[in-house]
């Protein structure tokens, strides 16, 4: 708009929804939910070589109350899945979930009695990142795709409600 040029680009004009989405994706705090081997690659993404901090995600909180993004990295066993659900329920909205690794996406190489065949049976997943373990670049790509998804959300007019519902409850 013309007014921005007059004020030498010190003022930007946009709509509220864009602004809310932009601020949400620019400082999305991850809950580093490292379960198994993928957690090591997630930690490798946090440190200096791949550096997740440049995307505003440096503050990785262990407490779900302070976090926006739950990166489920690793295998969810049947003993652990109630704890995973409980932690998801404790996160404040808006909240997103990334299923990192083959085990979180579909159960991975463990198709047996002890492993949940994909956490999307219990949680709403936004981005799936395959790999065993996925490279840190793959995790970064997934996070950027999540950022793009957040930018397209209708956060004001049609806010997303994510609740954990399982058939029969």
């Amino acid at each position, binding site marked *: 708009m013309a007014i921005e040029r007059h004020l030498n680009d010190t003022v930007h004009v946009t709509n509220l929804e864009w602004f809310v989405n932009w601020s949400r994706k620019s400082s999305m705090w991850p809950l580093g939910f490292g379960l198994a081997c993928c957690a090591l690659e997630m930690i490798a993404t946090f440190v200096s070589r791949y550096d997740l901090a440049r995307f505003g995600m440096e503050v990785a909180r262990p407490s779900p109350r302070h976090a926006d993004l739950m990166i489920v990295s690793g295998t969810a066993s*049947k*003993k652990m*899945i*109630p704890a995973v*659900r*409980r932690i998801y329920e404790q996160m404040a909205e808006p909240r997103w979930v990334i299923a990192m690794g083959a085990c979180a996406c579909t159960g991975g190489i463990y*198709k*047996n*009695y*002890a492993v*949940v065949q994909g956490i999307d*049976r*219990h949680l709403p997943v936004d981005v799936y990142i395959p790999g065993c373990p996925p490279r840190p670049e793959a995790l970064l790509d997934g996070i950027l795709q999540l950022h793009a998804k957040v930018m397209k959300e209708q956060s004001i007019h049609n806010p997303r409600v994510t609740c954990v519902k*399982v058939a029969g*409850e």
Partner: protein
Amino acid sequence: MNQEAIKDRLTAKFGQDAVLDTTVFRDQLSVTVIKDKIREICRFLRDEPDLFFDFLSFVGGVDKHPQTPRFEIVYQLNSSRHKHRFRIKTRVEETADGLASIDSVVGVWATADWHERETAEMYGITFKDHPDPRKLLLPEHWTVFPLRKDFPLEGTDDTPDLPPQKI
């Protein structure tokens, strides 16, 4: 001390009928002993000065279904002083109510605690006089024994994702 000599000490102390079977494969010897004397045998193997098996590497189970006795419990022993290894096994039969039992060796080696708990929950074997016979790795409400040969790999209806009641 070589493995044959260790076995001979065992038969000398407990008699020929204490040792049910001996198998040799490559350079390792396994001795199957009778179930009822397992605690005394283990104590002897640990305390005898020139045997001195103070380390228990693991206690494991093998399901030999459909052979009877069905289960085989394996004790892998090691000596820190003499640096020799030995393996003793014992067979446990499955009783009519589907359970089997054997004496626990926690009094001989403290490390047997968790190994026996894991073997118990995976095969359905009771270790008598175990100080803490709770489940170790499986969810507490499960009633199945996964490592048995007749349990399917992908689980049954008794191994659902979530526990029966809502948390």
